[in-house]
């Protein structure tokens, strides 16, 4: 569509854009591999001998494994629950011909859009009444407020896209609805199922706000560990950058895996 000069302009703009979006991430990873002396020198040190010292310290003396364990439990359990319930519910909503389907749908979406700050307050009151503050259960419950409506809605949009004919012919052949569901329907939406799971996992893994209120030293997650490095006296940047890297890298990989359905996931299925 463009001639040569136009193309050059086009590529230059895109290159600048990519430098802008990558610099902080690359800088974070590089800084996590530096010794403190290099980290703060300006003009910046670009060539240096990388060291894994910070990471080794975190995993041995820093007690990082506990945070990792908590993060994984909270995120995995929430994702698992939301995905199973959401997939069943999504299928029912897409196929069940409910009269109030639109109302239920609106309810689901408003739950998904609930501001975290507004959700924290009643959950905090509930959990403190039940003495659940500081338990991983409270965290899982809080993440479900987002992840369940998210999975339900996205899976509903995937099921609604499938032609009904195949399911109907399965019924004719004598299959029950459950058999049809997991033998015929589920395999067709498997990629969507996996990417919704990834995005649900990502929300729980990346969360800071809920975890800052609902966790105690035993149940703190990795983002809390990152925030704990910031204190009145200063910030331990070496560890902060290493923790940042550990939070971000798995999500970059998972995000790219789920790329094909990313638009759908991020727009709640409004766009495909």
């Amino acid at each position, binding site marked *: *569509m*463009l001639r040569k000069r136009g193309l050059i302009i086009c590529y230059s*703009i895109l290159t600048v*854009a*990519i430098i802008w*979006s*990558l610099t*902080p991430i690359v800088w974070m990873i590089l800084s996590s591999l530096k010794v403190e002396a290099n*980290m*703060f*020198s*300006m*003009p910046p040190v670009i060539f240096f001998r990388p060291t894994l010292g910070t990471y080794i310290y975190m995993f041995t003396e820093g007690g990082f494994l506990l945070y990792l364990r908590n993060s994984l439990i909270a995120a995995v359990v929430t994702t698992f629950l939301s995905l199973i*319930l959401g997939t*069943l*519910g999504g*299928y*029912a909503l897409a196929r*069940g011909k409910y009269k109030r389907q639109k109302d*239920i*749908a*609106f*309810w689901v*979406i408003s*739950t998904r*859009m*609930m501001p*975290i*700050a*507004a959700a924290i*307050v009643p959950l905090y*009151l*509930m959990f*403190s*009444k039940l003495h659940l503050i500081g338990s991983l259960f409270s965290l899982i*419950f809080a993440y479900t*407020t987002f992840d*369940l*409506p998210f999975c*339900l809605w996205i899976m509903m949009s995937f099921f609604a896209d499938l032609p009904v004919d195949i399911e109907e012919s399965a019924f004719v052949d004598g299959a*029950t609805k459950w058999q049809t569901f997991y033998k015929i329907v589920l395999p067709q939406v498997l990629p969507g199922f996996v990417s919704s799971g990834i995005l649900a996992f990502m929300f729980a893994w*990346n969360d*800071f*706000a809920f975890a800052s209120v609902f966790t105690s030293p035993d149940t703190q997650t990795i983002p809390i560990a990152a*925030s704990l490095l*910031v204190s009145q006296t200063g*910030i331990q940047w070496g560890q902060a*950058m290493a923790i*940042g890297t550990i*939070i*971000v890298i798995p999500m970059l990989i998972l*995000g*790219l895996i789920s*790329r094909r359905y990313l*638009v759908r996931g*991020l727009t*709640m299925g*409004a*766009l*495909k």
Partner: protein
Amino acid sequence: MKYKLIKGIFSKKGDRIRRMKNGKDQKIRIRIRTEDIMLAPSIIVLIAVSIFPTIYLLYATFFNYMGSVDKPVYIGLENWIKIFKDMEVFNSWKVTLIYAFVSLTLETIIGVGIAVLLYTIPKARNIFLTLWMLPIFVAPIVTGLLGRFMLNSSYGLYAYLLNLIGIKRDLLGSTGSALLCVILMDVWEWTPLITIVVLAGLEAMPTAPLESAEVEGATYLQKVWYVMLPLASRSISVALLIRAMDVMRFFDAIFMSTAGGPADTTKIIGLRLYEVAFRFGDIGYAAVIGISMLIVTTLLGRIFVKLWYSGGGEYSA
């Protein structure tokens, strides 16, 4: 009515038992479909995670929790009256509005621009897009941490570069620049979202209008303005709504980089609520702020659902 319902329970077979006026029980068959069994767990959990907390939030607005969280004092409408006179909350809404407006404007312009450019180069599109969208996956708390690191006046990379062109100040620490910095952090993280959404819209549009524009000798910019953007307008609105709701949802990045300072210039409403509740312990008042936020997001949600259902056309982008 000849009979009235006396037991609302289901018997084993899913029958409902009704007692007739003459004293005899009558079984009435209620069909429970497989779909209902599939939907029920989600509905039950959703009630627990959404309806119940919302009611509790409303209930909490009538109490004062300052003394003790377990034994709140009923104070009627006091919290509600307070919010209308509270200049700090008003200021936070103002900051939220500016924050949302400026970041969404920048994100739309840059995001759509990049999407159009990427659409122009089919061959290299994938690799550029992949690299461009990485910030989306960065946890907001890490974005805040990075903003703080990169902008630190003594060892931040960006601060150093700005220093070279003569801008010497504590960027996150001064009232004039802090809001702009947190806006740029949001722009950094979320502009790619607009891009991928709009690009998906462009890829889904029919090529015929573009081809006929080509035949009629339209320039590149004319094609962008008159053909591509109108066709992508729905995806732009969807992306903007999602972003608007997320501005209300999250406050992690600002919490981490400026904590709302200096002088409350970056204290968006979510952050204000968080502080009122968990730093000052005024949970009842925080609940009122929460309700006001819920009203705004519910309105946005309504528009979103309308847009969602309007997408059933030929190409839903």
